């Protein structure tokens, strides 16, 4: 198992970094802004956390982020 796991590490580590940095940035962005194109802060936080595997953050940036 251990050797097996090590084999996957080169794939898992970048995936985790990309995923969590995107998630962290999205939550930061939601909390920093008061107005959204659609929806409210609570809705977007739920969507981003539920769809945390990239889908939530991408949905937020496409449909929720207000154009400045």
């Amino acid at each position: 198992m251990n050797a097996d796991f090590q084999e996957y590490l080169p794939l898992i580590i970048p995936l985790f970094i990309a995923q969590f940095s995107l998630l962290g940035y999205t939550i930061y962005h939601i909390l920093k802004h008061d107005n959204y194109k659609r929806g409210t802060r609570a809705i977007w936080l739920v969507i981003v956390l539920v769809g945390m595997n990239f889908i939530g953050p991408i949905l937020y940036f496409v449909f929720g982020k207000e154009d400045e």
Partner: protein
Amino acid sequence: MKGFNVFFSKEIRELIRTKKLMILLTVFFIVGLMNPAVAKLTPKLLESIDMYGMTVGEINITALDSWTQFAKNISTAMIVFIIMFSGIFTLEYSRNTLIPLLIKGLSRRCVVMSKTAVMLLAWSACLWMCFGITYFYSGYYWDNSVVDGIFFAGFGWWLFGVFMISCIVFFSSFAGSAVLVLLGTGGIYITMSLLGLYKKIEEYLPIHLCDSLSLYNGELTSSDYLPAVIATGIICLLLFLISIPLTGRRQL
């Protein structure tokens, strides 16, 4: 030329500040990483089926599986790309943000050219990054040399993306909203898939470039794609050249 430079740098800044570039790069990064990951995990998944009493013989995963995933997944990433950029022209028209610049003497040709250039640049960066990641991991776990025509298949996808971009530019020159641009571009894709059923013209259609699998298997060689490459290049150029006067005549 000065107008082009100024507007081009404005577009790049817009791409960065609206976070579009970040999202696109992340999506293509993930896709590039998922291709070898899915191929790597396939034996594990089949093993778990094994536990339920089904017997699956020994399966051999090679770089070919990883590249097959690439050909499947890159189209999804391309759809994200097209959705992101469908409003690049129409949003500016509907918000009237172009009018001050046009009054100050920026020519409409510069607007079309610099927006197209930005899209091409973004598409090239995203696609080749995704390609590079898949290439690196496939080479790391398996052997890339068993798959034929990897680079040409990548080029085919790139050219197909360029074709889609020129569709966006073309439809943006007269359509009123981003949704119409999307519908037009999607319509072209569906029409091509239907026409592609007719084998004699299939090899001249841009959609033929997406057929990476036959290239990987060695059923087709890169020279079989030559008609499609030339036809796509000509269509892209035509669409682009038509959209410049169309945009020029457009009511703002």
